[in-house]
C-alpha cells in the first residue's frame, strides 16, 4: 500500500463523490432578515421552490418571518396569494409592515381545495408568492406544490404544525419556529448547503 494515489485522479475518474454536488447560485429573494439570509445557501429564500415553515402554535411570528418578503414583492407590483389563512388577516397590521394590500389576494378554500387552489396559483406564473395553510398535506401533495412552484417560478410557503418535522419533505427549505421565551428560528433543511448548527434568534416585533 505504498502507492500514493493523487486525489485528483480519483475525482477525475468519478470514484469519489463530493458532498455538495451543485453549487447553489445566490438568488435575489432575500428574506429581509439579515441573520437568516447569512446562513441560507441562496442568500435568501430558495428561488421558485417550496419553503415549509413549522410552528408549535399559531401566532409565534410566522407572519413576521414572511411579511418583509411580501412587502418587497407587493411594492414591486407583484401579486401575492394567501390561501385559507387560519385567522382573518388584519389589514392595518399588514400595512404597518409595508405590504401593499391591493396586490394581495385572499382565497377561502375548503379543506379539500386548499392544495388545488395553491397549485393553480403557483402554476399560473402570475403570482410571485403563494402562502398556504393546508390541513392534510402528505409527501406527494408537497411534491406537487414544489413542481408547481418550479413551473410558475413562484415562491411557495406552506405553514404546518411542528409535529410534521419527523416526516420527510420535498421542500427546498424547512424552518422551525420556536415559541418564546426563546423565540428563534431553526433551519432544519436547506437544499444546497449544510444545515447551520445554531438557531437564529428572532427579535420581538417592534412596538
Amino acid at each position: 500500500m505504498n502507492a500514493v494515489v493523487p486525489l485528483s485522479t480519483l475525482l477525475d475518474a468519478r470514484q469519489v463523490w463530493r458532498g455538495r454536488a451543485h453549487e447553489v447560485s445566490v438568488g435575489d429573494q432575500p428574506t429581509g432578515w439579515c441573520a437568516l439570509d447569512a446562513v441560507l445557501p441562496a442568500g435568501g429564500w430558495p428561488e421558485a421552490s417550496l419553503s415549509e415553515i413549522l410552528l408549535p402554535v399559531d401566532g409565534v411570528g410566522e407572519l413576521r418571518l414572511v411579511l418583509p418578503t411580501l412587502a418587497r414583492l407587493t411594492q414591486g407590483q407583484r401579486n401575492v396569494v394567501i390561501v385559507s389563512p387560519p385567522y382573518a388577516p388584519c389589514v392595518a397590521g399588514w400595512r404597518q409592515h409595508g405590504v401593499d394590500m391591493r396586490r394581495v389576494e385572499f382565497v377561502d378554500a375548503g379543506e379539500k381545495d386548499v392544495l388545488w387552489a395553491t397549485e393553480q396559483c403557483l402554476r399560473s406564473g402570475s403570482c410571485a408568492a403563494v402562502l398556504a395553510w393546508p390541513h392534510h398535506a402528505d409527501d406527494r401533495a408537497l411534491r406537487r406544490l414544489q413542481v408547481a412552484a418550479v413551473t410558475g417560478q413562484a415562491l411557495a410557503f406552506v405553514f404546518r404544525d411542528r409535529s410534521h418535522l419527523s416526516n420527510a419533505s420535498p421542500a427546498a427549505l424547512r424552518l422551525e419556529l420556536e415559541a418564546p421565551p426563546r423565540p428563534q428560528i431553526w433551519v432544519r433543511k436547506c437544499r444546497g448547503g449544510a444545515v447551520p448548527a445554531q438557531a437564529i434568534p428572532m427579535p420581538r416585533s417592534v412596538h
Partner: protein
Amino acid sequence: MLWTCIYLPSLALDGIIRRRPTEGPLVLVDGPVNARTIVSANETARAAGLHVGQRLSAAQALLSQFEVIPYDRDSVGRWHKFLAAVAYRYSSEVSLLPHAIVLEVSKSMGLFGPWPRLESMLRADFTDLGFRHRMAAAPTAHAAYVLTMVSDGQAVLSSGTLRNALQRVPIAKSRLPANAIAALPCMGIRTLGQVLALPRDGLRRRFGAELLASLDRLTGDLPSGLALYRPPDTFDLRIELLHEVENQSALIFPVRRMVDDLAAYLAGRDGGVQRFLLRLEHREGRFTDMPVGLLASERDGALLFEFARGRLEHLTLPEPVLALRLIARDLPAFVPAGRDLFDERPANALPIEQVRERLRARLGDGAVYRLGSTQDPRPERAQREATHDEVPIEPHPRPTWLLPRPIPLRGGNPIILAGPERLETGWWDGGEVCRDYYVIETSLGQEAWAFCAPDEQTGWMIHGWFA
C-alpha cells in the same frame, strides 16, 4: 369587389350531428304525417340506399333501423344566422342567400392576407364548428353563389375572367328564374355561356325582364341588391336535447358546443362577455338558471367553458333536463390584457385575472377577494373587501391576525408590552365600544393584542395575534 360564397348544403343535418355525433343512419323528414318525405340523409343512410325525396315508407322498406328526426325550419334559420355572425368577423358586408352566405372580402384581404390564406381561415372556422361547406370567390356575389354549385374552391379574382368561368355552368345549376331553367334546355341551350351569347331583346320578349336582371347581377352590370346582415346585440342559443338528461356529466358536451358558439359569435363582433346565463329547461316550463359572472370581459372559448363547467359540476339537477339555453346580454367591449414587452414570466403564464376566475368557478363567487381599510376605528369594522386602499397607515400597533370574535385570555397574568390605546367610539350606530387595547405576552409566550374595560387591566379579551 371580390365576393366569397360559402354554400352550406346540409345545414339542418349538420346542426343536429354537431351536437350529437352519430355513426348510424340518420334522416330528416318533412311533409304531412301520411306522406313524410326524406329531405336530408347522412352518409350511412345514403350508402344504404336512402335518398332525398324518397317517401319515409319506402325508406322503411329498404332499411329496418335508422333514426328519423323531423326537419325543423326554425333551427335551420337560426344556424344560418349564426354562421352569418361567424362570417361577420371577416367582413362587414355579409348577406344571406338560400343555403349560403356571401361576404365581400376585397377589403378584408388587406388585414387577413391574400385569398388562399383567407380561404383557409374561413374553411377552418366552418369545419371547427362542424358545418360542411363549399366555397368560391368571384367579382359578384351571385357569380360566386353559382360557382359553388358546380365546384368547390374555385376563385375568379378578376372581372375579365368571370365570363369565361361562367361559360360552362349548366343551366340547371345557374340559379336563374325557374321558368327559364325549365324552358332553356328544351331550346337546346344547356350552359350559361350560351345564354349570355343570346340577343338580349329576344330574351326579354320571351322570359321578361327578370331573367335579364339575373344575368346582369351575375356579370356585375347590375349591383347585387342584397340586404346586408347585421349581427344581433344579444346572444341567445337554445338546443333541445334528444333525451332527458339526468346527470350533469351528459350536459358537458352540449354545453361545450354552446360555449364555443358563443366564443365564435364574440370573435365575430370583436367583443367579450361579462355575464351569461345557462338555463336548463325541465318539463312543463320549469327551468333552473345557472348564471356565470366574470370579473372582466372574456371571449376565449376554452376559458368560458372551464368557468361554466366549474359551476355546472356544483349544481344538483332537481329534475331531468330537456333543453339548454345560453343567453348572453351583457356584452361589453373586449380589452386584451396589456403585457410587458420584456415580460420575464414563464411562457405559459396565465394572467392573474384568469387565475381568479378559475378559483371562483370552483370555490364559489365570494371565495376570492382583496381587503382594504375603512375609516372606522373599530377593529371589527376597520376592514372590508375592497380593491383600493387609500386610508393613511394606522400609527398604533396592530396585529397581523385578527380573531373573528374576541376570546377570553386563559392562564396567568400577562406581561404588558405596550398600551393602553383607548378606543371609545361607535355610539352613533348602536355598536358602541369602549376598550383599552394593550399588546401583551401570554404565559405561552405568544404576543397578543388584547383589550379590557377602561382602566381595569383584568378580564382580558384577546382580539388578535402578532404573528
